[in-house]
């Protein structure tokens, strides 16, 4: 019998956490100059958009943002089987010399971020790249660390963290769920 789900962040907590992350990004960058926010497909893109609008409320500046789909840079594509679906990538401005903040929902093995760093390098050479994640659940397989974290979570064996965003899932929430259960 599977254990029941537990809510790590509800909608209001997600909102609060993203606002705090936006503030931290501004603080670390000393304002909005040269700042570019890039969300990783899929839910990182929606989280990035929230951070962008939070920054624009606070600073009155609309900072440029984009979306990155890392599928074609995955390190497990040598395996045989149906290919994962490729989503849209959209980097609307030249990132050369900019400060790029990558936004993702859950940081786990670090392999997605490795792929994202490689992909960004094909668009230009930013002055600095930082990483902001809503959830850091540990379990890194690569030497990668976040600069801005919403919440650190320790995940019991056989469990996973699901992030829901209202644009795609009709609700905002972060839920700890047993693995075998479909989201």
């Amino acid at each position, binding site marked *: 019998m599977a254990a029941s789900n537990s809510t790590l962040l509800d909608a209001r907590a997600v909102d609060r956490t993203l606002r705090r992350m936006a503030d931290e990004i501004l603080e670390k960058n000393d304002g909005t100059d040269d700042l570019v926010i890039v969300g990783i497909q899929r839910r990182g893109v929606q989280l990035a958009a929230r951070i962008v609008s939070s920054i624009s409320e606070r600073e009155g500046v609309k900072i440029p943002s984009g979306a990155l*789909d890392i599928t*074609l*840079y*995955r*390190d*497990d*594509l*040598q*395996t*045989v*089987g*149906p*290919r*994962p*679906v*490729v*989503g*849209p*990538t*959209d980097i609307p401005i030249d990132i050369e010399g900019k400060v790029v903040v990558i936004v993702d929902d*859950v*940081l*786990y*093995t670090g*392999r*997605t971020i490795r792929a994202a760093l*490689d*992909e960004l*390098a*094909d*668009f*230009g050479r930013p002055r600095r790249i930082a990483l902001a994640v809503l959830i850091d659940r540990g379990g890194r397989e690569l030497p990668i660390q976040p600069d801005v974290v919403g919440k650190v979570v320790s995940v019991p064996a056989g469990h*996973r963290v699901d992030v829901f965003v209202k644009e795609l899932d009709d609700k905002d929430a972060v839920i700890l769920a047993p693995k075998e259960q479909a989201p």
Partner: protein
Amino acid sequence: MTLSLGKDLLSLEALSREQIQLVLDTAEPLKEISERAIKKVPTLRGATIANLFFEASTRTRVSFEFAEKRMSADAVNVAASGSSVSKGETLVDTARNLEAMRIDMVVIRHGSSGAAAFLADRIQSNVINAGDGTHEHPTQGLLDLLTLRDRFKKLDGLKVCICGDVLHSRVARSNIWGLTKMGAEVAVCGPRSLLPNAIESMGVTVFDRIEAAIEWADALNILRLQLERMQAGYIPSLREYNRVFGVTRERLDRAPKDVLILHPGPMNRGVEIDSDVADGPHSVILDQVTNGVAIRMAVLYLLSGGKASLADAAKSGGADS
């Protein structure tokens, strides 16, 4: 449920509506790669691809080559002239030799219908049909579908007329299969001598007058009239063909609505299509070329997961995050 294309891409006849949709949906985000500073993704690093072109081709060969390079595959080109093929080597021996050099995929253009399928049955590598005789040219069909979908945002219910030498055209066949599977209405228009017998059985309407076709259609896909057809007696003369079936500005101007113009190239300006139509505001002929690279990248990507020799042994596990 994850959909795949299997090991080979041989025809659109063999694909389901869902598989065609998968290729189009995969090609869409790949277009952006050709706009980057570095026009290359590492997806097919380490994969080797042989482009076997037994028939002359510039556009298709170059398009496949760009697609392969942008996906980081290593490609070799083998043309019939100047290779052991001209010394009498059989198709299957050529392919087996390439496979002995650990080729992962073969792209083949051949004058005989069924050549790609013949090869696919005999080698473990993925085989992509880049045109076989008068049978099919599936990647051309797919890029035509993508170009139409870009413009009309749908294929269901779209009215497309394929004009010209349908009888000898693998492009026509791939388009008819692809369009009908995607729910479009298909017609053909050309001299009866250049339309296959019983073409209606493929579910298409026949127009004998180009004016009627233009009036009916949302888009025309105008085929190249091969000049040899005149010598073979299919048509009386090129001038006559242009007078009766040529797509001209005057004819388009009389249509009740704008008609999108496609042509797989190379064009005979002043024969099947007039210059002011080919270069006109409703021509998407160059979009077809751009889309061709994205479609071929998508096909390479999707087939790269379907290697027959490894399919049973390997698991298709993926990373979580």
